[in-house]
């Protein structure tokens, strides 16, 4: 049998896993892999990023919109440590990703060799699995196992630390297909009794509220969710990562949960008699003060991960399993019922929020542009069909509040980790994961400059990212907190910024700046109709505040509408 190098075995193993796109950056300890890749460029599309952090965030963006496993390849030492933020981000946001990093040869391990970092131990607590490939013979098995672990159950990042001798060693390549690990049960067995109890609780509830998390996106359970809520007439609040679980304008979609979410679902969390959490993890940004959170309600938690049950919120019933199956099973047993008065009770909250917050944010009569109006206009100009990518901060909260969704897999944002600099590379990844869709990135002047080098990747790939830079010359979210909780002491939040339009032009990216309301529609239209990438800089109100807000540690129903 023909012998090939471990590096080439990696190429064949990646193809065996259905990988088409890789994001990466070469370096000393991964050179044999890049040499093998040179002969596989007709089958593997490698995107050269400008920094390894860009590679992992791009892989995340790719995974989020495609549902496939994102893949990044980097070198050892600093190459690997530059991926740490992305690995941690993918872990907390359950994003399937495999990161392959070079490592020094096994003979040099532990000797403080050049560009040697103990990557397995560094990444262990922030990855689903971290493994060092020490022999060419292990490549096929390890790669298959990595992809199996990354994509199954609750997805997550896997790190493969690929020793140089294993890359150069010769092996008779045999394809491997790992589809069973006896110590790892990705999907807990569905408990029929729990399904019956859940149906009983739903059938006996007068005021049920469903909290839809990213689990529905990850489990492709959009239809199953609709079937349940429409049959049992249950209003739904979405988490940040679950915003495209169901269309924004669905009559039962009562809005976004959380610190800057909508008034109705937050206040009514403490009014409902049954809280049905699906594929979400009761993050502190969603719950606020746990001591007063939904104490009046019975709580059912649907999740694939047993360690999420009772972690933050003690629940009355856990329904373990894949929500695509468990939701369908429960729906069969629930009665067709109407909760008209309860569903209508969300309307006054929506009206109050519209009058006090939303109307002012999207229909300002005078003054500088506001983030919310820009976002809503971009959303509408794209028929609410685009993919929303955000960075982190006010741009993210405004983006998630005011963008509208009609399609699944349309939100790419850094939820649990809150990684500034995530947006630009994630948007690049999204254009590869969903090439047929429009990708709109909302990013602030702070976050853009954290990974601004990826404009080089956009230039080279002509990635059609529509970059909407919401420039307020401030680290806006921190500034808002300084205003609200630190007596307006703006400690290091104002920023002197470069000419972003000029920077974009240097990267051969068409760019424009808009500051006047009358020109906004026209500039958005121009951005969306221009083929390829585009940077639209919007000069927005410097000291705008994202509202409503549940102050940190406050009760979920204590939202501030005005300051």
């Amino acid at each position, binding site marked *: 049998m023909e012998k090939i190098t471990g590096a080439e075995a990696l190429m064949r193993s990646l193809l065996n896993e259905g990988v088409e796109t890789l994001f990466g950056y070469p370096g000393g300890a991964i050179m044999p892999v890049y040499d093998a890749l040179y002969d596989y460029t007709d089958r593997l599309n490698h995107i050269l990023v400008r920094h390894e952090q860009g590679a992992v965030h791009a892989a995340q963006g790719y995974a989020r919109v495609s549902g496939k496993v994102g893949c990044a390849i980097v070198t050892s030492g600093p190459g690997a440590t530059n991926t740490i933020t992305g690995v941690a981000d993918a872990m907390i946001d359950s994003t399937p990703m495999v990161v392959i990093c070079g490592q020094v040869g096994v003979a040099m391990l532990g000797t403080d060799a050049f560009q040697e970092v103990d990557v397995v131990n560094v990444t262990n*607590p922030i990855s*689903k699995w971290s493994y060092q490939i020490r022999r060419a013979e292990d490549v096929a098995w390890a790669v298959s196992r990595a992809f199996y672990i990354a994509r199954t159950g609750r997805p997550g990042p896997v790190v493969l630390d690929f020793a140089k001798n294993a890359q150069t060693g010769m092996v008779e390549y045999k394809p491997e297909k790992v589809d069973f*690990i006896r*110590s790892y049960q990705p999907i807990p067995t569905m408990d029929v009794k729990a399904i019956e109890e859940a149906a009983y609780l739903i059938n006996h509830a007068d005021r049920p509220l469903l909290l839809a998390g990213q689990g529905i996106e990850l489990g492709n359970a959009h239809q199953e969710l609709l079937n349940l809520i429409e049959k049992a007439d249950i209003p739904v609040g979405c988490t940040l990562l679950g915003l495209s679980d169901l269309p924004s304008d669905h009559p039962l979609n009562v809005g976004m949960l959380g610190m800057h979410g909508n008034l109705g679902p937050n206040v009514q969390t403490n009014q409902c008699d049954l809280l049905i959490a699906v594929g979400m993890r009761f993050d502190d940004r969603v719950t606020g003060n746990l001591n007063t959170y939904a104490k009046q309600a019975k709580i059912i938690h649907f999740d694939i991960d*047993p*360690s999420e049950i*009772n972690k933050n919120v003690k629940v009355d019933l856990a329904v373990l399993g894949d929500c695509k199956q468990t939701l369908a099973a429960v729906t069969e047993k629930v009665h067709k019922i109407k909760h008209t008065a309860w569903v209508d009770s969300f309307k006054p909250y929506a009206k109050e929020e519209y009058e006090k917050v939303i109307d002012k944010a999207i229909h300002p009569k005078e003054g500088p542009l506001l983030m919310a109006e820009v976002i809503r206009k971009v959303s509408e100009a794209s028929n609410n069909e685009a993919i929303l990518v955000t960075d982190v901060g006010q741009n993210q909260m405004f983006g998630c509040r005011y963008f509208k969704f009609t399609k699944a897999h349309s939100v790419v944002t850094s939820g649990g980790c809150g990684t500034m600099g995530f947006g630009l590379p994630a948007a690049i990844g999204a254009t590869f994961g969903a090439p047929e869709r429009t990708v709109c990135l909302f990013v602030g002047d702070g976050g853009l400059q954290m990974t601004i080098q990826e404009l080089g990747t956009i230039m080279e790939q002509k990635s059609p990212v529509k970059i909407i830079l919401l420039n307020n010359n401030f680290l806006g979210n921190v500034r808002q907190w300084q205003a609200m909780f630190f007596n307006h002491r703006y400690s290091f939040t104002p920023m002197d910024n470069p000419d972003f339009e000029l920077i974009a032009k240097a990267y051969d990216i068409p760019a424009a700046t808009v500051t006047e309301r009358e020109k906004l529609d026209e500039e958005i239209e121009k951005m969306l109709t221009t083929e390829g990438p585009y940077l639209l800089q919007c000069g927005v109100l410097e000291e705008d505040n994202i509202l409503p807000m549940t102050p940190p540690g406050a009760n979920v129903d204590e939202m501030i509408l005005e300051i």
Partner: protein
Amino acid sequence: MKQNDCNKCGKCKDKAEKDLSLCEHLYTILIYSENVPGLLSQISAIFTRRQVNIETLNVCASSTPGVHKYTVVCCCTESMVIMLTKQIEKRIDVLQARYYTDDEIFINETSLLKIATPIMLEDARVSEAIREHNARIIEVNPTYATAEKTGSTEEILSLYNTLNAMGAVLQFVRSGRICITKSKAEHLDEFIARREKERGK
């Protein structure tokens, strides 16, 4: 440290007020994993992150070929030990993790004491204590004697404290707890049998 409770929170004495969610107790977690390197650091990281100290730790091959057994003793609330157990079990190569209270397991620890021979010869209470505690002398020479004591933490510490008060102890070491469960069910075997049936399905 007592055998049945760690007395950390002071609530254990009053059984009427015993609230498992608030009260810290001594728990023994038995973890079975595949025999792969690096698992110990994965397990210990989970304790570190939850700010729970490992009181004792024993790692060895189990009676099932290829399976390693970790015996971890820690002091925490029951809700914490539940979370720890689930998060340990979530690690890919961990087969099973379960927690036990002391009444659910047979426990043993062993210890070695290095005793100064001149003091032992001078003070008759030293050999008396060794006999009373059913400890075993395994070596004597003119400088020191080595005693071995196996039993519960309390029994071992009682011997050590007695001899130490006499100034006789040169060195003392106590092992981590080892235990077997009292339950009639062999949970690991059942788990492996079930998983093997699911293989290829």
